[in-house]
């Protein structure tokens, strides 16, 4: 499976690196090069990090980001598509299917030879076709219903669910085909919460765009904000105050804690063990209140912005967070013991919704979904970013791939995050007081950012950031006037949603909420 050729060896043969792309190179190739890339993807197991369309002054193009998992090398390949067509990667990387369908819906970029040409985000309701293309065309609502994949056979029946679900959750449609109690096939249909975020950010000043990206997915608002901010900072070659780097990590870990607490509780609740939800939602609340006290917002929305962090942590914040970690440790351990010892709970979670390692690797899924199935990648370690290179933590990996494993990954990550919060609070660098006796916020002034943009003539940047779900990829192109020309945030859920379809196969319908919650993919972050 492992090819001989390193990723960069191939990329250098494919084309020339584009100027002003940081921190990893972006190679521009032609159709022959793209086809060569497809050949090599079949022989190497580089993971596909993302694939997205783009419209620059010189026309449409498609970008693909790849990573060599062992070395952590990341590279981008771009193919200009003057005729709006490109050879599809879907045959060698099934994870590309939905990304290519989305690129087609938004830009009108046709993937030749794609295994599934149906629309994905476009439900025919926008009044426009290809809204991000050079010239969007008008459209009318479709007359025919969306063609779901067929599953036929004796005794099969369909159960349509959604888009409005029974709980307080986001909308999406699930089409089950069941044989009695057992699910024979699940097909997802998403895109209901498509808000046109990639279109909205276009032409916006970076700060305004950051506000939109912060609202991409409320539960990972910090992680998405960090990814966007770091991509912008890479594009403009900015160096932010070190304290801001540490504060960002602190917020990211608090966010991870809050979400994992909520998820573990909700998974147990879906297994009819409401006690855990009641207890763990109190822990979640404790984290959110601490975040509110430290940064002025419970979800820490808009606290991370390009150039740094605003506001700085409250003066009492570090003490409060250290107390919080002690309190959380004290209260979390007995709950873990209860989870571990409850036979009725284990009965539901063990061996339910199994995803095997091969599938996880094929789709390049990260986060708890990947780690519970033996794929132990974490963007904080590889490629790694500050301040995590200076911190001590482990990435838990299990191989069972069932709901139970995904719960345990979360439990272990909670423990790691608690330790990370302590380390960060203890070692965070301070900011010297200014000449006027006031401590400046850890933030670059906006003028400085604009000057950099003007001096460098803009630039392109990419960032990989580990959210609580897995790694986020954000790619931006900033114009010389400091506005965003193109921003593509790729949520980890893109590669996890397809696996949910595989996880539920052969399980009973009643276990679907449990599987779904153990994945906890985002709808909003995926639909953009």
């Amino acid at each position: 499976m492992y090819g001989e050729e390193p990723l960069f060896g191939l990329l250098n043969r494919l084309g020339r690196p584009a100027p002003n792309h940081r921190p990893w190179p972006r190679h521009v190739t032609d159709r022959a090069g793209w086809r060569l890339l497809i050949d090599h993807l079949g022989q190497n197991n580089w993971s596909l990090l993302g694939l997205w369309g783009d419209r620059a002054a010189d026309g449409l193009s498609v970008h693909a980001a790849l990573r060599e998992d062992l070395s952590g090398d990341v590279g981008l390949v771009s193919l200009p598509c003057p005729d709006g067509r490109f050879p599809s990667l879907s045959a060698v990387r099934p994870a590309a299917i939905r990304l290519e369908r989305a690129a087609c819906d938004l830009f009108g970029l046709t993937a030749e030879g794609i295994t599934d040409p149906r629309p994905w985000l476009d439900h025919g309701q926008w009044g426009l076709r290809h809204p991000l293309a050079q010239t969007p065309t008008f459209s009318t609502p479709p007359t025919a219903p969306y063609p779901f994949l067929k599953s036929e056979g004796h005794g099969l029946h369909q159960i349509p669910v959604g888009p409005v679900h029974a709980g307080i959750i986001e909308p999406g449609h699930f089409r089950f085909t069941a044989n009695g109690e057992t699910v024979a096939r699940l097909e997802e249909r998403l895109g209901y919460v498509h808000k046109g975020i990639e279109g909205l950010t276009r032409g916006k000043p970076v700060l305004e765009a950051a506000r939109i990206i912060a609202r991409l997915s409320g539960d990972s608002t910090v992680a998405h904000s960090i990814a966007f901010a770091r991509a912008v900072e890479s594009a403009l070659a900015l160096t932010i105050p070190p304290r801001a780097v540490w504060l960002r990590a602190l917020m990211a870990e608090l966010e991870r804690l809050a979400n994992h607490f909520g998820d573990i509780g909700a998974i147990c609740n879906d297994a009819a063990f409401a006690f855990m939800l009641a207890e763990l939602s109190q822990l979640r609340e404790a984290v959110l209140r601490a975040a509110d006290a430290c940064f002025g917002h419970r979800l820490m929305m808009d606290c991370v912005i390009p150039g740094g962090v605003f506001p700085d942590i409250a003066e009492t914040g570090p003490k409060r967070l250290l107390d919080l970690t002690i309190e959380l440790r004290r209260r979390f351990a007995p709950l873990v013991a209860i989870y571990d010892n409850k036979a009725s709970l284990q009965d539901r979670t063990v061996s339910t919704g199994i995803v095997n390692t091969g599938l996880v690797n094929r789709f390049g899924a990260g986060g708890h979904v990947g780690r519970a199935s033996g794929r132990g990648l974490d963007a904080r370690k590889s490629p790694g970013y500050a301040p995590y290179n200076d911190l001590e933590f482990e990435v838990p990996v299990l191989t069972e791939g069932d709901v139970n494993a995904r719960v345990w990954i979360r439990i272990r990550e909670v423990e790691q995050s608690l330790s990370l919060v302590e380390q960060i609070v203890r070692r965070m660098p301070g900011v010297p007081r200014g000449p006027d006796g006031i401590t400046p916020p850890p933030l670059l002034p906006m003028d400085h950012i604009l000057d950099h943009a003007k001096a460098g003539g803009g630039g392109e940047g990419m960032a990989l950031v580990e959210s609580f779900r897995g790694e986020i990829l954000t790619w931006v192109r900033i114009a010389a006037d400091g506005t965003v020309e193109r921003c593509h945030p790729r949520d980890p859920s893109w590669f996890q949603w397809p696996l949910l379809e595989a996880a539920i196969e052969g399980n009973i319908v009643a276990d679907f909420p449990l599987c779904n919650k153990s994945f906890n993919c985002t709808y909003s972050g995926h639909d953009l």
Partner: protein
Amino acid sequence: MFKHILRSLTGGPVTEAAPAPSPDGLAELAGLVDRAAKARLGRSLSIRAVDAGSCNGCELELHAMNNPLYDLERFGLRFVASPRHADVLLVTGPVTKNMADALRRTWEATPDPKWVVACGACAIDGGVFAGSYACLGPVETVIPVDLRIPAAPPTELLAGCWLCWSAARGRVATKTKNGRNHSFRPCHQNTARPNQAASGFPPKPRPALRRQRSSFRTTRPRFRANGIVGGPVASNSARHRSGSKGRRDLRAHPRAQNRHARLHPTKRGRASPAHDAESPRLRRQAFRRPVR
């Protein structure tokens, strides 16, 4: 585990008291709206949350309102799984075009009388998503909105609920305990409600639905339907009053049945939605539920 249970039993509830009473405090607001809700709906109010394109932030905070610390249910407000069981649709998000149809159909599926609450900046005016090719913006572009809660964090949301309810009753309280001004306002007057006919609201009930409902009523004992729709308060009280042991007894007891039907005419079709709108007397009755 047993230690935990013991602690839960002996330690008292973790639910926080509403903040200390102050002229504009939450506690007072809670009391205020408790009265308001009681007067209209007895003690219970069923809320169906609909995400019409939110970023999920609003949903997280709605979840938080259900946690033991805020415990929304102690005030009789609870989230239900089906629009058929709901008095209130709580809509979040900037109504994406892909969700507009689903939202409209959820609204149609909610029996009258119903209220629509727009929750969060997105639902009120589209928030940062206003102007997108994929969003319609405010909820009222799709369904009539009665109340608006601009806040997201649970304490404010809680306060917002109360304020809205009291405001809906004509007592306008616009300041929170922090002295901050909220733009809570009763929107009956200035949204689609008064000229419903002109704007096509409410859409005609779908025939299949009506038929189904009436057959439900004739073939099954009424209290059962009440029990399902009206929640435990309604069904329990009915059972207690009739003093009977089972369903058949109650059906055989015309007085109990009548009384019950009189108390709960809302969702079960004695007064049809169309009736409601025409007759103010019936409509008023429709709001009334037993107060214990």
